[in-house]
């Protein structure tokens, strides 16, 4: 039997408005699921049960009073622990912020809170969102709901696992190089990264500022459209926020793909892609063609260099952003005879391996004598990737590929090989460099029973077409597999 926490947000919202269930019922269902599955998953770094109950009661009161509430009202939500929440610890999965209690709300959370969203907790993630497996969390890894010996993907692995297992109905993560789409693919849920700058970054603790994008995890595409609509729109507190009002992405969702021109990135279905991934994606292409899409072959000629450019640009921005952790105003502080010694020890003790690697990579790439050759050249390659997309949009409305070359890999498999880990992001990074919207939608299971994700990328600010195609595909496929973990739990 399906419990309330297994419903999609729009299904639960329907029951709330019909008076069949209360928001308190919904949140209690999520909280019970967290109790039952958290020992296996470790998806949360902080839980906020009391706040959630209080917010749910407020929603019930307003519904009883006949208020017309936004569609996100009363729906149990989880937030990646890089999004600030006033009064609730926000650690970024790092020892250096283990005790940090932000004095302000991130804009995305402020908007959702105002709309009646119910926060069940803050989710585990790779430290400062740097990683592709969630193994870089200072507080221990998250386990994949489909196979507890495998990674959920990263860096927003806790949000992905929480939504896959019904701990929350939906969640926010952040996508800098694929950190929402890749864990969504590996965890069998929908991950939607909007155009860079569409949701505010205010209160998103910075990793790489020209790439960081708040993104959604949901169990279906309609929910992605609903949740995204609630967080986008101009924010004067973020100078890179696009100056456009919010829009309702659920409008036009059912228009189908008839006549849409979809370019298949054929090069990304060759060597290096697991057969199980290739098979499901090939079937997805045929399905979309059957639905009336015009399928052609597309290329992004500089995509091979995008990964290299990304692993210079993102660390460069990271080394600059993370300079603020100096033990002075917040966070961990080590002892030191003078201020420089204190700062160096604080950072040496407070940061984990991957964060140190990226800070040093970025410091090197920005240092005297190397700046032009590395960072300057990487920014030029970024221009070429943008031009590749522009050329592709002359012929196509959407680009299609696998989200990740592999399904979820075993915990520890790539932990000692940073470069192998970086290659997990090879298909997701180009959309970040170009700032374009992209979704990962489940397209089936491989022969081990592990989920495969299909990626669709669209033009900047054309979230509507990305979501409309993903919706048509999802409705036709009817993917309804559930993680085996839930078989013993759902009564």
């Amino acid at each position: 039997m399906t419990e309330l926490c297994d419903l999609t947000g729009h299904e639960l919202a329907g029951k709330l408005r019909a008076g069949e269930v209360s928001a308190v019922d919904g949140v209690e269902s999520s909280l019970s699921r967290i109790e039952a599955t958290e020992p296996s998953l470790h998806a949360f770094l902080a839980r906020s049960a009391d706040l959630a109950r209080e917010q749910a009661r407020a929603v019930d009161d307003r519904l009883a009073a006949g208020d017309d509430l936004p569609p996100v009202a009363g729906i149990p939500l989880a937030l990646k622990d890089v999004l600030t929440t006033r009064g609730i610890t926000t650690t970024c999965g790092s020892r250096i912020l283990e005790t940090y209690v932000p004095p302000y709300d991130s804009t995305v959370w402020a908007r959702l809170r105002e709309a009646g969203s119910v926060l069940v907790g803050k989710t585990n993630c790779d430290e400062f969102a740097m990683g592709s497996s969630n193994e870089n969390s200072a507080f221990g890894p998250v386990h994949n709901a489909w196979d507890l010996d495998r990674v959920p993907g990263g860096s927003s692995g806790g949000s992905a696992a929480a939504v896959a297992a019904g701990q929350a109905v939906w969640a926010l993560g952040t996508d800098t190089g694929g950190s929402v789409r890749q864990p969504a693919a590996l965890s069998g849920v929908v991950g939607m990264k909007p155009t860079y700058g569409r949701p505010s970054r205010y209160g998103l603790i910075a990793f790489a500022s020209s790439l960081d994008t708040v993104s959604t995890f949901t169990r279906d595409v309609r929910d992605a459209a609903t949740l995204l609509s609630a967080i986008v729109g101009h924010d004067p507190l973020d100078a890179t926020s696009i100056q456009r009002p919010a829009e309702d992405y659920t409008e036009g969702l059912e228009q189908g793909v008839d006549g849409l021109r979809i370019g298949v990135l054929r090069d990304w279905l060759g060597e290096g892609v697991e057969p199980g991934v290739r098979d499901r994606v090939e079937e997805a292409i045929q399905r979309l063609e059957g639905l009336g899409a015009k399928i052609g072959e597309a290329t992004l000629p500089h995509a091979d260099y995008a990964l290299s450019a990304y692993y210079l640009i993102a660390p460069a921005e990271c080394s600059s952003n993370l300079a603020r952790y100096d033990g002075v105003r917040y966070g961990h502080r080590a002892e030191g005879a003078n201020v420089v010694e204190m700062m160096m020890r604080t950072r040496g003790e407070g940061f984990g391996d991957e964060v140190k690697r990226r800070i040093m990579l970025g410091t090197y790439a920005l240092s005297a004598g190397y700046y032009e050759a590395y960072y300057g050249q990487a920014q030029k390659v970024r221009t070429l990737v943008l031009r590749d997309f522009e050329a592709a949009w002359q012929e196509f409305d959407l680009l299609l590929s696998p989200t990740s070359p592999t399904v979820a890999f075993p915990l520890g498999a790539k932990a000692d090989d940073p470069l192998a880990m970086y290659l997990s992001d090879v298909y997701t990074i180009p959309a970040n460099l170009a700032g374009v919207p992209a979704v990962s939608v489940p397209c089936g299971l491989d022969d081990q029973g592990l989920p495969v994700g299909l990626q669709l990328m669209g033009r900047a600010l054309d979230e509507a077409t990305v979501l409309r195609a993903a919706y048509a595909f999802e409705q036709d496929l009817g993917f309804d597999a559930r993680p085996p973990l839930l078989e013993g739990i759902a009564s």
Partner: protein
Amino acid sequence: MPVEIDIEHVARLARLALTPEELERFREQLGVILEHAERVTEVAAEAVPATAHPIPMANVFRPDEPRDGLGRDEALANAPDREGDFFKVPPIVEEPE
């Protein structure tokens, strides 16, 4: 070929106190990562402008309207050490001998 870098110099620039074991491990790993990243230099891009930001924007202003900021105690609430209304830090300037 892995790139050879002066890892101790980079760690100093980055203000990271690292153990000898970390220095050696990061020297090897960064060399391999940079060998891959160096591929960007293979691209002929002399005449290509740099992109710092994917969505072009210029001269972004917001209305100059006063609004409440953090109160003093809120701003100091996360301080590792404080003295009165100040953040307290170890000595910055050495005392003369």
